[in-house]
């Protein structure tokens, strides 16, 4: 019984982290049709910035804010100066963001060094809680809570606000949206910055859980892609469900079939690609 509870909670917490990462990526692709390979760098930078701020101020909230906003600012700069020159040229955009991924990875190695580090958890969430027979880290419960709250906030943004309606319009048909007077360049910048914000935020949350080290950007990027392929590109609901699914399958898969550990993350992705290529909730 303990085993099932722990694994399920674990899967859900990991899934929430994946959701935070995938949501930004999915949004960026859905609206801008840009394959933002630099998303991994946003996570990495978010984690490292959070680490530095935490060391200086010992405040997790401040670190979250600083990291998310800092990364969003960088993304804004990137989009304004470089990315917007090559709209419509998907291959060039992908290559450019890939280049950015490498540049940021190297800079991070230079600034923060090569040692693997972990962000200290926020005060109050460093201990494990007892739920009957089960001992579970309280921080992971926090990640679940934050993921759910973030998901709800994003859903509310998308479904109940004008900004959200504009974003949805952009996802559905960018040309039509432009035709009815939506300021698409501004929309793109805003979405790119929002996606980066989510990635930076995820970086701090994930950094306390999984650590931050050179190479984390590539690993996280890979996982985020798996989630959006399963959940569907451009869909927030897809990112949420996809994240949960991947988190749970990965956990239970590793527990029952440890020899297939590397396979458990990619098996559902392969299955979805074969059966329903647009993902569970994707829009073409």
């Amino acid at each position, binding site marked *: 019984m303990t085993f099932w509870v722990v694994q399920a909670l674990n899967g859900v917490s990991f899934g929430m982290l994946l959701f935070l990462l995938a949501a930004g990526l999915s949004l960026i692709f859905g609206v801008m049709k840009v394959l933002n390979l630099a998303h991994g760098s946003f996570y990495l930078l978010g984690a490292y910035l959070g680490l530095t701020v935490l060391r200086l101020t010992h405040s997790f909230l401040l670190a979250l804010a600083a990291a998310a906003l800092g990364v969003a600012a960088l993304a804004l700069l990137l989009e304004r100066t470089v990315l917007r020159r090559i709209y419509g040229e998907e291959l060039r955009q992908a290559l450019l963001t890939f280049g950015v991924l490498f540049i940021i990875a190297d800079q991070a190695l230079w600034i923060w060094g090569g040692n693997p580090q972990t962000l200290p958890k926020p005060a109050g969430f460093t201990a494990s809680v007892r739920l009957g027979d089960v001992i579970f880290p309280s921080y992971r419960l926090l990640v679940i809570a934050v993921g759910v709250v973030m998901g709800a906030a994003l859903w509310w943004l998308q479904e109940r606000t004008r900004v959200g309606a504009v974003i949805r319009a952009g996802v559905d048909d960018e040309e039509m949206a432009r035709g009815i007077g939506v300021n698409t360049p501004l929309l793109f910048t805003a979405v790119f910055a929002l996606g980066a914000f989510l990635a930076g935020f995820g970086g701090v949350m994930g950094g306390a859980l999984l650590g931050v080290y050179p190479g984390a950007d590539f690993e996280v990027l890979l996982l985020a892609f798996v989630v959006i392929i399963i959940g569907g590109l451009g869909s927030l609901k897809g990112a949420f469900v996809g994240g949960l699914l991947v988190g749970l399958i990965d956990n239970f*898969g590793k527990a029952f079939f440890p020899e297939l550990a590397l396979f458990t993350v990619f098996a559902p992705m392969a299955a979805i690609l074969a059966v329903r290529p647009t993902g569970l909730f994707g829009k073409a």
Partner: protein
Amino acid sequence: MVRMHSEIPFSGLRRARPVVFCLAALLAPALAPAAAQAAASGPVTIGIVLPNTGPLAVVGQETVRGFDLYMNKIGLRAGGREILVIKEDEEGKPDVGLTKAKKLVERDGVHLVLGPTNSATALALRDYIDAQRIPLVVPQANTRILTAPGKASRWILRLIETSDQGCYPMGAWMMKNTPYRKVFAMGADFAIGHHSAEAFMAGFKAAGGQVVKEVYPPLNTLDFAPYLTQIAATPADFVWGWIGGSDSPRFVKQYQEYGFKGKVPLYGYNTMVDDVALPAMGDAALGITTVGHYTAAIDTPANRSFVQEFEQKYRNWPSRYAEAGYTAAQLIAQATADLQGAVEDRAKLRDALLAAAERIQAPRGPIRFDKYQQVITDIYIMRVERRGDRLVNAVVERIPAVSQEDTWKWWQKP
């Protein structure tokens, strides 16, 4: 009006320029042998092929720090000659390592090569080094295959214990010094993780212990929970693991978070809590007992002075990787001094390196090489303790002069 040839100034020279240039380019290599002969009184050139980027970057950088510390201490001179160090990045990849090694040997004309860190790179270099007949001093790559009969090369010297050399004796040590008899063994899912866990289990079983379960999480596992939760379902009374790199901080923290610390004691190989990763782990690492060839807490005059010099320069305690770099530098400098700088004869240089082992005072203690050029070294059992505001791997026991031949009876049929 056509200008006469003779009216154009320097026309003769200008037209001849391309020809002169080509002749110069062709002749230059011919002059080079003369330059190489002059180099016999030039610097002793050491080629370093260690990772400076990639997942093993921190290991490579630590090794270079230890190496530079000693080289700068002796003023980059030995045997009456200057020492020139050329550093190349193997990136933790075998093909890159091989390319860089070739560049060092063939283009830079190094006298010997130091490196690599990655075991796969070491195996990739083996045939090339053997064919080139140039000494290779290996500071980290600890695959047991590299110095086994049939695979060992006369030109490859290794300064670090194999995966077996440390882990096998720990099995017997556990039976003798702890009340624990049933192990849940773990190892990262690649050659070194497997070999190390196998060696520990073989040593443990040979001394009468029992292996309850073996589990091999992949490298770069983000979440060890699926593996850790299996421990509670077994009758194991301790866990032994080979975990390294960026997995170590995660593994150690998650071990505590899931409630196993304090309930099921954790043992393993020193890469789990090495002096590079330890500072970031905090109290989660306290009490973890591991085995390895070095800890900065070794209490000998030679080591204390090494630690002090290192800390003065780099503001951190040295790790096992820094010690390997430092010892390599000592060895090379001593060999060069013994040869009075005549390092051109590679066979003599190799032999001098082997002999130098018994003349240097390595921070870890006395070392010498066996007949496969593998180091015979003291092995330390160590436990993480807090001393003041610092976490250290405190020495619990020293097992002197462990040789790979003692530890391979269970897999190597001589």
